[in-house]
């Protein structure tokens, strides 16, 4: 079985109005090359589901987004994402703003093929008021309490980035955290994974510890796209950190008229090969330091 495809091939399967989950967390291990390909496409009216960073901001800036399902959208060291903020303050997008843990449960419910998971998260807060589609239920048991029935967040497509994958769709994340990527893969009908390195299957067999860094079965992976540096400007721990100067340029662009268009013309409206050259080349990218807190 060979699941290798190009970025163009996988993005061509994303249609107007689809619900697209994006793995990673804030400025970490986002499938940015796939996002750039999505930005180049004509697709629109997407519902984006993400522990969000510049992935969400860029898609908002490019007018691809109808709705965002999120708990936060942040670049971490730049706390507020510039284009997400702009879209929110101009009220150009619909929202489902929920707690980070509710988000996990929504993906989990989708992954389990059940309609909801009961939780106490959200009770007493405005999360329930701004999201009337999230219902509360009475417990069928003797606790006598009210519970939030966190609905499944069913995804049409999940876009993920990993360090290494083979052509069968065995994906490895060696970074310190795989975040909720496994749940994104399970919550979606189709999962498209970009990888920094495409490896032979033997790679996983050299040591059982290698297999410990594989967090979902290959049956959850529908396509593998080999894109070295494909997470840039976000990090791909342990291979490279996030590109602080690049994020600063991106963040500053919101302040000038036509700022997004200039960023788009420079860094999106080009091939990935050209992109890599513009950001200093793959060798320089791999030397970006991992963040320390």
């Amino acid at each position: 079985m060979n699941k290798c495809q190009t970025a163009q091939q996988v993005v061509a399967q994303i249609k107007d109005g689809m619900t697209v989950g994006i793995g990673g967390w804030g400025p970490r291990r986002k499938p940015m090359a796939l996002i750039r390909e999505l930005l180049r496409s004509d697709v629109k009216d997407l519902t984006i589901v993400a522990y969000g960073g510049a992935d969400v901001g860029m898609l908002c800036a490019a007018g691809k987004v109808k709705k965002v399902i999120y708990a936060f959208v942040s670049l971490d060291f730049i706390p507020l994402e510039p284009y997400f903020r702009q879209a929110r303050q101009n009220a150009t997008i619909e929202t489902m703003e929920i707690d980070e843990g509710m988000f996990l449960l929504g993906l989990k419910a989708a992954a389990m093929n059940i309609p909801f998971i009961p939780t106490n998260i959200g009770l007493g807060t405005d999360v329930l008021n701004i999201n009337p589609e999230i219902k509360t239920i009475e417990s069928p048991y003797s606790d006598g309490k009210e519970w939030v029935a966190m609905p499944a967040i069913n995804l049409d497509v999940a876009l993920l980035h990993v360090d290494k994958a083979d052509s069968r769709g065995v994906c490895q994340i060696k970074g310190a955290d795989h975040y909720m990527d496994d749940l994104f893969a399970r919550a979606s009908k189709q999962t498209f994974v970009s990888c920094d390195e495409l490896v032979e299957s033997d790679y996983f067999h050299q040591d059982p510890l290698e297999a410990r860094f594989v967090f979902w079965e290959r049956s959850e992976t529908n396509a593998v796209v080999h894109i070295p540096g494909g997470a840039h400007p976000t990090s791909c721990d342990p291979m490279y950190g996030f590109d602080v100067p690049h994020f600063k340029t991106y963040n500053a662009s919101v302040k000038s008229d036509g700022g997004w268009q200039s960023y788009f013309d420079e860094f999106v409206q080009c091939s990935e090969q050209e992109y890599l050259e513009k950001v200093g080349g793959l060798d320089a990218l791999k030397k970006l330091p991992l963040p320390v807190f």
Partner: protein
Amino acid sequence: MSNSTPATDYTLTELLICAASTAWIDDGEVLATGIGIVPRLAASLSMLSTNPDLMMTDSEAYMVAEPVPVGKRNGYEPKRDSWMGFSRIFDNVWGKKRHAFVGPTQIDCFGQANISCIGPHAKPKVQMLGVRGFPGNSISHQNSFFIPNHNKKVFVDGEVDMVASIGYNPERLPKGYSFDDIDIRLIVTNLCVMDFNGPNKQIRVISLHPGVSIEEVVDNTSFQLSYASDIPTTAAPTVEQLEIINRVDPNNARAYVIKDNPLGDRRKEQA
């Protein structure tokens, strides 16, 4: 001079770190999560002094046996005890063995807090982070708040613009729940330390920082506060506490938390 002697020279930020560190004293073996420099250093100080049973992370994906110094590590290698990725953080949160110390943008008289947005949610005046983990934290475990700029925009009239964390608001109490299901401990500000032990969980001023009057606190708060006629002064850091803070903050990140890094006793600043 013994190490437990109160220091004479200390900054306001150092005073706040020491005051905030008292939050975890009686918590036993819980995960101490301090978001931001002051809460993080406060948790670090507590783990290295008053509550050695505390647990902390490296702010990434591992539990560590001792607090990781803030910023540049200069060769220091975190003492990693176990993996603690984000999915496992939620297992810990829901298991209730955690006390988070966070910095909301708004707090109301019920202890409801907001980091989501200012203005109506449908079209905010200012979009901030989103609710993040506030709803789950607030109904799962102990929480405390740090406010570096005590004013009426933070301590708002009525309710916060977006109730991101549940507080002691009888109107919003879910069916089958009581105030016992909510555990907000301390609010440490640049002016004072407060808890929720006034009548009916009213916010109560428990100490004033050196040189701060209760009138200044009241004037900078939009709602009624509870306080005694004789309010203690917030304890000055001890020599030992300052030494520990220096160890966990070797790059002096704490000097940049409050503008101009004022002295802990403002009367000395004016002198």
